[in-house]
């Protein structure tokens, strides 16, 4: 197991390097450099001063040297400074991690709580009326863009019914901050979770249908074991294992949805940070964000492998 994980990590290093190189190249090709972003147009700074600063910051060096320098700093944990707020990038990102973590984890919990039972029912009663209804909703779930779900939720439950706040994460007037945050969390996690529920339902359903047609199920049924017991003791064990693996590897994809959902609900997480950084072309922040997503993908893939080995005794690395 240890050796396997080590090997996987070794494969991921070049991948991560390739990603960082691509992004660095692309950002380098983008018009303007960090200095031209800082200096306001029409300001009285002379060309010589600008050149002096270019030299000071190493912007006049060749491309590969600058990439090497940047990479060296990143490996030491220094992601540089934002060219808009002038704060350390690492600081800006780390204060946004928790809100996004709350948001994604609660969507994940919601998706598992709803998706697993629905997927089991749909797969167990396959091609029945209830399966068709559930499949229809699952289809609707992936077809309705989550930002539209978010807007409709806001319209119905925040604007019209006033059950939930209209956006943001905290309420300065609230007595209990944790409770206020929880209330603010409900609508965005539903909006972010809906497409994820669909993924779980569809995967679990097809996995159960697949398992139910296997020989071992026929044997178990022939021995007179009730089909519910077969489902519980044999089929679910196999299907849930593979479903949870898929869920783990698709977890980073939630971050894409988070950009949109955090915008709709003005949730101060990493998605909103990425949006504002892209808006102001804050390249150091964008780079750090992309690298972080890369690391997250690797971590989730490793986690999926380990979960798989834990849950399925047949797997040996």
């Amino acid at each position, binding site marked *: 197991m240890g050796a396997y994980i080590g090997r996987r990590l070794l494969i991921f290093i070049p991948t991560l390097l390739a990603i960082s190189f691509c992004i660095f190249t692309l*950002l380098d090709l983008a018009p303007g450099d960090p200095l031209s972003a800082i200096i306001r147009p029409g300001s009285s700074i002379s060309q010589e001063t600008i050149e002096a600063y270019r030299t000071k910051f190493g912007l006049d060096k060749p491309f590969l040297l600058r990439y090497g320098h940047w990479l060296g700093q990143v490996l030491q944990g220094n992601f540089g400074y934002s060219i808009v707020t002038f704060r350390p990038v690492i600081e800006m990102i780390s204060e946004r991690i928790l809100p996004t973590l709350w948001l994604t984890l609660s969507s994940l919990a919601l998706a598992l709580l709803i998706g697993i039972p629905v997927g089991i029912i749909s797969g167990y009663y396959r091609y029945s009326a209830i399966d068709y209804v559930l499949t229809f909703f699952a289809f609707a779930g992936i077809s*309705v863009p989550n930002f539209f779900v978010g807007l409709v939720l806001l319209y119905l439950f925040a604007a*019209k019914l006033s059950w939930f706040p209209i956006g943001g994460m905290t309420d300065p007037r609230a007595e209990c901050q944790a409770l206020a945050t929880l209330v603010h969390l409900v609508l965005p996690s539903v909006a972010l979770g809906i497409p994820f529920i669909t993924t779980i339902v569809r995967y679990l359903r097809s996995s159960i249908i697949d398992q139910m047609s296997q020989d071992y199920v026929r044997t178990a049924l022939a021995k007179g074991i009730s089909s519910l017991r077969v489902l519980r003791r044999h089929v679910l064990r196999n299907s849930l294992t593979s479903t949870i693996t898929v869920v783990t590897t698709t977890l980073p994809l939630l971050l*894409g949805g988070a950009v949109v959902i955090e*915008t709709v609900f003005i949730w101060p997480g990493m998605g909103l940070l*990425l949006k504002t950084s892209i808006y102001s072309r804050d390249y150091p922040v964008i780079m750090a964000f992309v690298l972080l997503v890369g690391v997250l993908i690797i971590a989730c893939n490793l986690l999926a492998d380990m979960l798989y080995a834990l849950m399925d005794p047949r797997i040996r690395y």
Partner: protein
Amino acid sequence: MTNARRLLHRFLRHKLGVMGAAFLLILCFLTLLAPMITDGLPSKACLSRIYQAPSREHIFGTDQLGRDVFTRVLYGARVSLQVGIVSVLIQLSVGVLLGSLSAIAGRWMDMLIQRVVEVFLGFPFLIIVLVLSSIIGGSQMNIILIIGFVGWPPICRLIRGEILSLREQPFFEAARAYGISMPRLLLRHVLPNILAPSLVAATLNCANAILIEAQISFLGFGIQPPTPTWGNMLMSAGQVHILESKPWIWLAPGIAVVLTILSLNFLGDALRDAFDPKYYV
């Protein structure tokens, strides 16, 4: 029954797929006729009629600048459909090319292409498109190119799998044993077999492309106002008073996105069932 009739018969049994196809046909028709049905000026502001609720004159109402929402939804459909169709054509060409190259060349070429595919598939699609559109700018052409050149990996992987499994089939072996040349083999035996899965994938990817464009424009990085797109029309719902008391402004483009994507997904599902004999044993 001939093959085509059997396909049509199977397709027609999928009620939701037929409904999806019908909706898409109507939408295409309306979009083409847009200059005739409406006054043809989706961006014309008219401050004497702002925020009008849906009425006989403006069936979807008017927006904050007094523009007719129905006209804007129809012109937005033009953008969405163009983005969907053209970017999927790019995805198909790149995906089929690299997928067959990967399957046929094998070895290091396969290895290289599949690693690239993995990286693309692991990354949130929306984030790649966002970062790229911030670098090269978010015109309609750029959005199409980005979605086209970033979204090919699923098709590449699909085509590679199809060809690899085709190569194991006896008929393929027989054809090779007859000494049929590689180009002919590809054209006559591989192409017809990968046509069906490609068409299904193209339909589903088209839905995804439209969704991505809507999200990018909604975030404000895609196609810029005053050109109407469903995404940037939804942006106005960011203002609380519009969200709360003028829902027609954002509901109309939102429902248009939902119906279009739902139709494409149902259509893709129906096509998959129609092409796959397994479903009708």
